[in-house]
């Protein structure tokens, strides 16, 4: 297994052939444990790249390997399993299942991935509580309804959920855009602390250039994508 968590080679992808390629990436690597900031205006294919990495869609040509697995070679159910086992996601907002408590939300990936469950040392619930308090949430909120939390609290719960069971990579799609600027910084630092413990890589997509300084590497999608957006 290479030291890269993500290796993209000669990737071509179009949503519809007649509309032309959205992505054309000769090479893109993400090292194990590396924290990469990916920016770019909307509509340039950031979310498409994330979908490809998660195996929601497969490339038209080229290869994508994540954690040593060639995603394009997997069939649908296997890609689902691969995603559940190896990737933690954080989205922009409304990340939580409203009818589950924060604790149950954090434990959600363990319901669907036995690997994530197996990678937890000790009790899953204890690990979930640890992650929540690590991310700065007080223990009294963890049994409340998720919908009753503030947006900032919700994003921390979502981060804890992405981290549970030590996925190889955390993919975050504008997770801080609904937070105020003070909260953004602390959110990212807390996320990184936890990723560092487990050697989890982070691919963080945002158009907020101010956050780039927190990362090992900052990258504009236009630097790797040869498709020039109209």
């Amino acid at each position, binding site marked *: 297994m290479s030291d890269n968590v993500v290796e993209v080679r000669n990737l071509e992808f179009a949503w519809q052939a007649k509309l032309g390629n959205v992505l054309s990436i000769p090479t893109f690597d993400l090292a194990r444990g590396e924290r990469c900031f990916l920016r770019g205006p909307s509509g340039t294919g950031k979310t498409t790249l994330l*979908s490809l990495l998660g195996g929601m869609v497969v490339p038209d040509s080229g290869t994508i390997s994540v954690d040593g697995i060639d995603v394009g070679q997997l069939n649908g159910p296997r890609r*689902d399993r691969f995603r559940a086992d190896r990737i933690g*996601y954080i*989205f922009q907002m409304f990340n939580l*299942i409203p*009818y589950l408590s924060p604790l149950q939300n954090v434990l959600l990936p363990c*319901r*669907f991935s036995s690997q994530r469950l197996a990678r937890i040392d000790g009790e899953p619930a204890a690990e979930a509580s640890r992650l929540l308090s690590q991310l700065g949430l007080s223990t009294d909120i963890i049994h409340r309804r998720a919908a009753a939390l503030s947006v900032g609290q919700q994003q921390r719960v979502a981060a804890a959920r992405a981290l549970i069971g030590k996925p190889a990579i955390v993919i975050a799609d504008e997770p801080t855009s609904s937070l105020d600027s003070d909260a953004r910084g602390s959110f990212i630092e807390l996320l990184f602390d936890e990723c560092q413990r487990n050697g989890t890589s982070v691919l963080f997509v945002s158009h907020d250039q101010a956050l780039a300084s927190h990362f090992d590497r900052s990258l504009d999608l236009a630097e790797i994508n040869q498709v020039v957006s109209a």
Partner: protein
Amino acid sequence: MNVLSLAFASLANRKFTVLLTVAAIALSVALLIGVERLRDGARNGFSNTISGTDLIIGARTGQLQLLMYSVFRMGNATNNITWQSYQEIAADPQVEWTVPLSLGDSHRGYSVLGTSAEYFERYRYGRKQPLAFADGAQFDDLFDAVVGAEVAEKLGYKVGSEIVIAHGLGTSFAEHDDKPFVVAGILARTGTPVDRTVHVSLEAIEAIHVGWESGARDPGMNVTKDQAREMEFRPTSVTAFLVGVKSRLGIFKLQRAVNEYRAEPLLAIVPGVALQDLWRMLGVVEKALFAISVCVVITGLIGMLSAILTSLNERRREMAILRSCGARPWHVFALLIGEAFIVTLGGILLGLIILFGALIALRPWIEERFGLYMSLAAPGASEWMLMLIVLGAAIVIAVIPALLAYRNSLADGLTLRV
């Protein structure tokens, strides 16, 4: 199991609509099983009413009408049979026994039946069970009466109570209050119209009508009880009579003979055949009832379907989050099927609670009012099968929203629509 617990949490989040759906299904299931019980009760009630009697003979009328008034005490005889005809038929060599029935009077809404002492020996119900006395014995004195279990219970009669018989049926202002009867015996409960009958001797029917020949009391003709006991009463007619034959082969021969009787138009019916006819006629009603309750169940299930479908769009985000946490499309499919399963199962259980609650509360009333005995027994195989079919239908129906959600979740992937 995981998905089912998720389904449960998701339903708990939508308590109000879910409870409404559960209630709709519960009511429909209660109705469905209730109608089943009613059918069983009615069927058993009918077929168990009379047994051991080979023929019922009355004035010529419809087969069902004769059955109705002679056995169920419903409706009126159009004509009586003369005592002479009765005597002649009773003397037929095929005949083993006869029991005369004389109807037409009532006591506080209950029919009064004039008959012979043999009635208590010959009348059989259910599986040829004879009548039994809960208290007292059959009539001895001219003014003795034997009351059915329900009459005694509802009117609080004991052996020795005095009762006055009204002239005619229903609530009548003309009462034979000059000649009260004394309760001599109380019959054990049978679950048949016998429970709702006051039995007196055939002679007593004649005796109370002395001085009533015009149909109302004739003031000039007053006969006291003691005088009456001294008189001899020869019945002039009976309403109908029950016949037992010596050999079963004789039944149809005798029936034909009676139906071709010269002196007056008579009708002989075989109770089993007539009961079957009656049941077949009621079977249409019964099937209609069943069809209606099936429709109600379908309505309940469509209600559930629409509730799930309505929720689908607002739950697309929920599904996408589940997918991002590793749920596979079939998990989304199973989640929706699981919800339908839980809702329907809850509805069925609540329906059973409602049904048994209603049965416990309404059974005495139904029994009293309609003479229908509804069983309180635990659901039988056919009832469990009905409930299983409801559950199965719910799951089949839920495939529609489950497939939609499955397709949505494949198409949406991880994109969260706000």
